[in-house]
């Protein structure tokens, strides 16, 4: 394939050892995966809390619509029950809001901040790559001159090439070293960084559902009907619906 003009000839001397390159790749891949996963987690948590909020608002609408229905004017008992229910729903909504705020501060925002490091990292890796390419190119150039006959002009060119190469090599080495040091550190930092988030998620849920249990428990005490099993409830509903359907003014299909 010698007819394909290579822009950068690969230098004969190995610039970086395969092991070092592999290590670098491995570390960077781990970070790339971490980047994907933190982005995904961020999105999931956002959508999850959005749905949670919508649910809570829908619950409030259930009770507020009923409370504004004229039936409440007709039946004082109905009014009383619906008022109690509406109060309960609104209180739950307030607790839900609090829960969402806590999650926002201890999970969603921290996730975003963590993710914001990745663009800088990716840019640094790209620059290292660019420098590596420059390094390889200049290295080839030097080697080319080294193999030529030692004439005056060649010597000058060789010297110039070497002088050009040196800072590039140093730059690359510096970049490489820094990334090899910092990448694992950053990767490792995720463990301690996210620990409070997951604690927070469990705690927020326990707090919310404790309230919910209390509030709805109080409501159930106001209901005369003793607790029925699900089958009993289903049968009850079926029976009532059948009674309704037996009326002449309700068509029987």
């Amino acid at each position, binding site marked *: 394939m010698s007819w394909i003009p290579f822009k950068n000839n690969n230098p004969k001397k190995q610039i970086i050892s395969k092991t070092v390159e592999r290590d670098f790749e491995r570390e960077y891949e781990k970070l790339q995966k971490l980047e994907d996963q933190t982005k995904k987690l961020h999105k999931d948590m956002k959508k999850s809390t959005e749905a949670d909020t919508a649910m809570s608002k829908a619950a409030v609408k259930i009770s507020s619509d009923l409370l504004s229905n004229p039936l409440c004017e007709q039946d004082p008992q109905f009014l009383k029950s619906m008022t109690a229910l509406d109060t309960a729903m609104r209180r739950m909504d307030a607790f839900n809001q609090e829960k969402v705020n806590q999650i926002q501060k201890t999970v969603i925002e921290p996730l975003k901040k963590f993710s914001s490091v990745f663009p800088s990292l990716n840019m640094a890796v790209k620059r290292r790559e660019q*420098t590596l390419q420059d390094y390889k190119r200049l290295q080839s150039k030097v080697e080319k001159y080294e193999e030529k006959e030692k004439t005056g002009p060649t010597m000058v060119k060789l010297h110039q090439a070497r002088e050009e190469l040196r800072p590039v090599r140093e730059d690359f080495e*510096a970049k490489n070293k820094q990334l090899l040091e910092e990448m694992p550190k950053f990767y490792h930092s995720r463990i301690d960084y996210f620990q409070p988030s997951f604690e927070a998620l469990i705690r927020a849920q326990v707090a919310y559902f404790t309230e919910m249990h209390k509030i709805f428990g109080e409501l159930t005490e106001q209901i005369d009907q003793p607790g029925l099993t699900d089958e009993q409830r289903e049968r009850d509903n079926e029976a009532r*619906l059948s009674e309704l359907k037996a009326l002449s003014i309700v068509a029987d299909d």
Partner: protein
Amino acid sequence: MEPIYCTVLPGSPDELGVPPEADKTKHKQSLAIEELLSTERGYLNMIQLCAVDIRNRLKQKQLPDFDLEGLFANIDDVIDVSSKLLYQLELMDTENPQYLQALSDTFLSMRSELENTYKEYCASYSNILILEARYREREELDKAIQETITIQRIARYQLLLQTILKNTEPSHPAYRSLQATVDSTVALNSNINEYKRLKEVADKYNKPENLTLMDKIYRINTHSIAKKTARLSQMLKHEAGFLPKTEDKEFDALEEYFLALERGVADLQDNVSTFVKHFEEFLSRRPHECELDIETEVAFRNYKELSAILHKHIYPKYMHRLKSLVLQPLCSLQELFACPQNMIRKRLHKLLDFEKIEEKRRETGSITYEEQEAANTYQAINTLLLTEMPKFNGMATQLLIRAMETFIFIQRDFAADVNHIASGYLQHLPHNKLPDYTFWSWAEGMFLKEAKSLQQISQTFEAELNPHFILPLTPSSQRRLSELTKRYKSEQIYQASSDIKGGRDMDLSLSRGELVAVIQEMDTKGDKRRWLVEAGGNRGYVPASRINPYHPTGQTASPSPAIVDEASKRHSVVVVSPAIESPVLPSLQVFAAYDFSARSIHEVSLRAGELVTVLEHHDRQGNPQWTLVEVQGQKGYVPSNYLMVVPVPGISASSRKT
């Protein structure tokens, strides 16, 4: 048509030796009683034959799409009732003087059973007729089912009993009971008829008609137009106040309640539906399935396990209960409102008709047959609604309330389930002993602190963006440099790190190493990645990422023709700079790096690549920018940065002298 009397008894009354008048009645009475019993037997036989025999045969035929239930309705109940009646009647001997009393008692005690059973059958009568006609057409039925005899039977009781009564002495002890019995059968029949009529009216008017536009157009004829016009004018008269509206406070109250209830159920069904939908959306998100490679971390592990259990067991159970115990019944209930609503509408229409008819009746004293029918229809619908709406309203309200109560129970149970599991996991967390307020302060504090370290990490990575080396300059670059520095500050001088090919209109093309001056760090659209630069009299845009600040420092070992800027030493990232080699080491040689034309007698010309001998590193005034060299036998001054030191292996110092 069966005869009322079976046969004429042989012999005259005289032969029997009973007094003529009293005996005649007594005789007729006995005959009537006998007839009652024997006809009942015959009737029972007949319907049993029908029900058992014909039905079995039809069942065996196994005809598809055959409504056996509809064809026979509640004939079994009729058979039961008839058997029971017959049994009771046959218990006592008809000659027994107590018989009449027993007869009355039987009928009175069985009155409600008879009414309910025959009521149902008679109401289904028209349906039976329709089915029978259809199946006879399809030749699936070869014989008539004789359902008419059932219809006729219930009416016959009245006649038979009346005959018995007619032939009973008013002084008879059972007379009053018998009278009561007759009255009750009269009432019974009237009830059955009324029920039948109402049912027919309901069936006709309660179904909302799904007419196509074409159907509706076909329905328009002079009659229907007249009808609707009349209604409309009646309505307008009401609205304008010309005619008092027929107020039926009772009905209005029922209607008002009905409408409120309908709204309530519709809203509730809608809202619960939305609620469930959002929960399903919530359930579809699975943040706990992220792979952050921190399985060993305690908090994450607990969170993941907890969430998995909730998603797998608790949430689906909650959803299922909501759907089956709350949403489903509400949907079914909501559907039931359509027909009564339709009937209420029809009632209003019929009411308008009725008002006109009543007006006519008042004015003219007579109305047509159709008008009477229409009036009756209105009455029927009105009665039906007044009777049944309270029941409907009551039962539907009950269902509504039940649905809400169930919802409350479901919420409580759900909270209990989640709490039960989650508290267990909470115990395993490192900070579980902290009270809530303290925990949240701690957590938020942690993240504020972490935000700072993250920022530092970012900066560390970003610091790599400024390469700390510069490319050596060509003479043309040097000229460019001196040109630019005249007009721009040194901070504005940048160098292209690679060849830049300008793509768009105002873009510049640069070659690697070329020097430019940055005029503005963004383009006219505010894009900070495109900078406005000047290069040799040309102005244009270049990508910011491809140019680097030109901070010439003393780092590079090569004496490149760069102006040493002491201040820029601060910007450089620390790299150990190799010691500046003295050009007079024995193993090093000095060459001319570039061509140089001497411009005075003190200077000497150079050709790039020539070997020179350095005599002095400064000129007469001590200026290190000029070096005294000897080349080609000539001596003179040359610019110091035009010289290059090259380590040349293998050349001994002694061979230098040329």
